[in-house]
């Protein structure tokens, strides 16, 4: 059950679900579609790649996930330069007139850590070209602010390296980024299991993006449901407001009237 009127708003459009899922690494397109459905996500990330010219019968993603029913968020995963990222997103926009895109400019093959200099440069260019840019970034509050200043519609700091499943490593920075940002802050990358997603939401983040944690679970469809619940639980806990942490025990039952 979601909270009434508690919508996620990105670039002026509102969404009920605060879980965004990736569509990579699944065993089949059928499993991808089932996991997306189970997750309740309204936005999915997709990659832009060459069409396999020779394989004419190969099923395509659009046959399983209807872009008219679910929002495709083209992503520049795999791009290591501003030039490649811009080229990819300009092509993506051409396919279906998508304005909303996810920018990811990587700096290192081993860690897939973002190259923030190239990322900032690309964000600025894309925003000027009329794109609504959601930006994968490091958890550095200064860089996050600069991205917002040049027109990012969402700040997407990593919890941990892409596909690592380590979970949120720097809660302090994520909280700082959330506090200073006027655009939605979405934890992207590094979520390993449901509790990681809940923690991100409890910190006040606006949404969570998950791919590998669902796709590489033993039962991806069940994990997709679990992530859905985890995000809702975390959001509810954040809005409910947690109790204060105390140094010593505080009995839950009245101390008066104890049988002596």
């Amino acid at each position, binding site marked *: 059950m979601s909270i009434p009127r508690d919508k996620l708003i990105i670039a002026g459009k509102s969404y009920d679900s605060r879980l965004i899922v990736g569509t990579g690494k*699944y065993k089949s397109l059928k499993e991808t579609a089932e996991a997306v459905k189970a997750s309740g996500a309204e936005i999915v990330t997709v990659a832009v790649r060459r069409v396999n010219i020779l394989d004419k019968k190969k099923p395509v993603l*659009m046959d399983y996930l209807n872009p008219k029913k679910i929002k495709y968020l083209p992503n520049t*995963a795999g791009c290591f330069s501003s030039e490649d990222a811009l080229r990819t997103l300009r*092509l993506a926009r051409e396919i279906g007139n998508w304005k909303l895109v996810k920018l990811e400019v990587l700096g290192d093959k081993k860690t897939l850590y973002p190259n923030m200099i190239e990322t900032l440069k690309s964000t600025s260019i894309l925003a000027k070209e009329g794109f609504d840019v959601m930006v994968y970034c490091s958890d550095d509050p200064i860089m996050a602010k600069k991205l917002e200043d040049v027109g990012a519609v969402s700040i997407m700091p990593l919890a941990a390296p892409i596909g690592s499943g380590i979970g949120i490593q720097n809660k302090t920075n994520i909280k700082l980024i959330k506090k200073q940002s006027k655009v939605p802050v979405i934890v992207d990358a590094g979520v390993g299991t449901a509790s990681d997603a809940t923690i991100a939401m409890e910190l006040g983040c606006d949404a969570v993006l998950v791919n590998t944690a669902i796709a590489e679970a033993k039962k991806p469809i069940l994990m997709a449901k679990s992530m859905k619940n985890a995000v809702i639980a975390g959001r509810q806990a954040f809005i409910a407001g947690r109790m204060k942490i105390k140094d010593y025990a505080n009995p839950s039952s009245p101390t008066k009237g104890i049988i002596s």
Partner: protein
Amino acid sequence: MAKIQLNGVEYKFREKTKLKDILKKFKISEKKVAIEINGSIIHSHQVKNCEIKNNDKIEIVHFIGGG
């Protein structure tokens, strides 16, 4: 003959072959792809009359599963 690179693979077509005929030959639905020739995007309204030339580098991309 026009020698072209199509998604990194070399093909030979008659000079002035139309791009739309190449899409047809490979059974590619124009609506689900984006096309670039020599680094420039070919918008959907341009596909119909676009003719290929020798040494053209054509890229045809679509959406696949990704994170």
